[in-house]
């Protein structure tokens, strides 16, 4: 489980590995908060997310709500996709980078 931030000027890329659940929600939330608020554009790579729950979902939704900042989620893992589908939020998040695949992997 880890969170890595790659700086790229006014943009940044966050890579989340491991879980995105209530267990590490505080940690991920704070780190993501720093990344999102500190940059105009943030890309979050979810390929490594193995497990996700309501707390993780809230972080995704909250990140999307930060005014004046652009947040994109990319490379959704199967766990993320199935949860978004369950919550019927795929469209609402409006992520152009959200890929659906029949085998669960983008």
């Amino acid at each position: 489980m880890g969170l890595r931030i790659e700086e790229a000027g006014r943009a940044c890329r966050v890579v989340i590995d491991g879980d995105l659940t209530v267990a590490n929600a505080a940690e991920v939330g704070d780190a993501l908060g720093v990344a999102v608020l500190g940059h105009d554009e943030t890309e979050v790579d979810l390929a490594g997310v193995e497990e996700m729950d309501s707390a993780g979902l809230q972080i995704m939704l909250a990140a999307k709500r930060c005014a004046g900042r652009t947040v994109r989620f990319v490379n959704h893992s199967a766990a993320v996709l199935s949860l978004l589908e369950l919550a019927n939020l795929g469209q609402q998040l409006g992520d152009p980078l959200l890929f659906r695949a029949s085998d669960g992997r983008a």
Partner: protein
Amino acid sequence: MDLSQALATFFDESRDLLADMERILLRAESDALEGEEMNALFRCAHTIKGSAGLFGLDPVVRFTHEVETVLDRLRQGELAFTPALVGLLLEARDHMAALVAAATAGGEAPPAPALLDGLRAAGGGARPADLPATVAAPLVAVEASGGGPLGNDCWHLSLRFEREVLQSGFDPLAMIHFLGSLGTVVHLETVADMLPDLAALDPELCYLGFEVALKSGASKAEIEGVFEFVLDQARITILPPHSRLDDFLALIEESGEDKFRLGELLVACGSVTEHELARALAAQQEAAPPVRLGEMLVGQGAVQPALVDAALAQQKKVEERRSSEAKSMKIPADRLDALIDQVGELVIAGAATQLQAKRANQRELQEAASNLLRLVEDVRDSALRLRMTPIGEVFGRFPRVVRDVARELGKDIELAISGADAELDKSMVERIGDPLMHLVRNAIDHGIEPPERRTAAGKPARGTVSLNAYHESGSIVIEVADDGGGLNSERILQKAIAKGLVAADASLAPADIHRLILEPGFSTAEQVTNLSGRGVGMDVVKSNVEALRGTLDIDSRPGQGTTMRICLPLTLAIIDGFQVGVGLATFIVPLDTVVECIELPAGAAGADYLNLRGEVLPFLRLRRVFAVAGDEPLRQNIVVVRFGGRKAGIAVDRLFGECQTVIKPLGRLFSGVSGISGSTILGSGEVALILDVAQLVHGAALPAGTKVPTPAPAA
């Protein structure tokens, strides 16, 4: 928590609900029910089932469930009321009452398999063949109230979680995922309106809510079971398939959230369709003045106005219910009795204070004391009013009685009730029920003629029994009247002569003849029915009424009907008394029995009767009756009293005049004492005995030599 106490509350509540149910069902027999009444009817059964479930009273739950199913179908308009169905439901109601009573007593009521079969037939899918196709009518009525059933066959779940639910280790989405095992989640809307942005977010708190449309064959309990562990940390509302718009509106109202947003969510879930909302809108338009819809709602599109409008109406209803709940409260009768007892003591103490103040001859003190006494009397009046209950409580049970008895006798009878809001003391309400019941049954059985005879006499075939109550100078009058054939004076007289109640050559006024039916062992019915005519009855009614210090009058006109008039004092706790003195003792004669006061003529000193304007008036000497010490004064007075149509005199030493008397019952020790009905405490602190005039008159009117009451030798 003391379960037995809660159980008593359940019993009380159930009794009220069952009474409501009976009332509505009886109405259903004659009129079409409004949507609101249908709902009320359903709620009665539903609440009883729910509460019974809490106590684990399985027999009640099981049976009531069947009743509820039928009522639900009626409510949904899938079933229509027929006389047969009303009859069945009334029987079912009675059985519910029996089950509740048995459960409360800890026993078991006998099962009613036939009833159960009937209910299942009515509640099941098959519509009984004898039901006419009038299903459409109630459906329209229900729709017009804005609560038509919706066509959706999905459960609708509205889930709102408390912030701490994640920290407690529960994941809302995991539960929703689990819902999938019960059926198909047709649609889900995540409500993230409360979610702050990332900077303000506490990731360990839950900000989410969900609206879920679930297609499932599971029961509500099973669905609720999914959320079993978070029930105290969430607001879970589960609406069954085909819920009514009302239920959704209630959901919107109770959520306290933005109504427009939630309305949109419901539409999004497919739980409410735009079409249904439009239909509700049309119904609203019919029910409400058009101005309301023309207001600011136009701009909102067709969907929200109906929702908001009806949601506001719903809210108003909730408020009204709340305020009416606040208007009355239940108090155990014994606490009330204790209060009234204490207030009685207070009155006495106040009077004593005033007496002392008078003796002390201090003007300020006297003023203060009389002020105090006035306030205390106000308090007493208020306290007595607390015990006042509308007579309607008793009247309420008669529609059913009349229906059943009339049916049994093959008569068509209408019951007219008026004056149901006249109030009288609670204890009287309870004790007047049986005598009234008897009078009503008598009126139906003996009073109202069979339909053929009524038509022949040029009267409508449908007989009328009316119950009426009104206040008259400090007492309440209750009338039971029928428009039947009236009392047959001739037959009554013959029978009375045959029974030796009157001499064969007696000439009696019609009113006196009518009173003969109140004599013990008198019955004129030629046909002994199940209900009456066994020769017990009217005399029992009479003595019951007299036990309440009331009177029973008969007013009968041949061919036009009979009116039985019961006149009762408003309360048993306080009477207007007439204070008299014998030697050092003081007695109270109930004022309503006092006719007049005269001086004892000197010539009658040794006799037991005197000449009162040409009439023989027997009298007794209170001094002798109660063996009061001292010599008879030169001048004595006679209080002429009347009771039960008889007059007698009571010789006393002094007359003190009227006084308000708080009645204190005598202890068990004195239960054998005749001639005294109670005691009271005078302002001076002395005890005065209240005379039992009925007994005294009885004694005085008997020929000399009989023993009641025995004149004791003066000590």
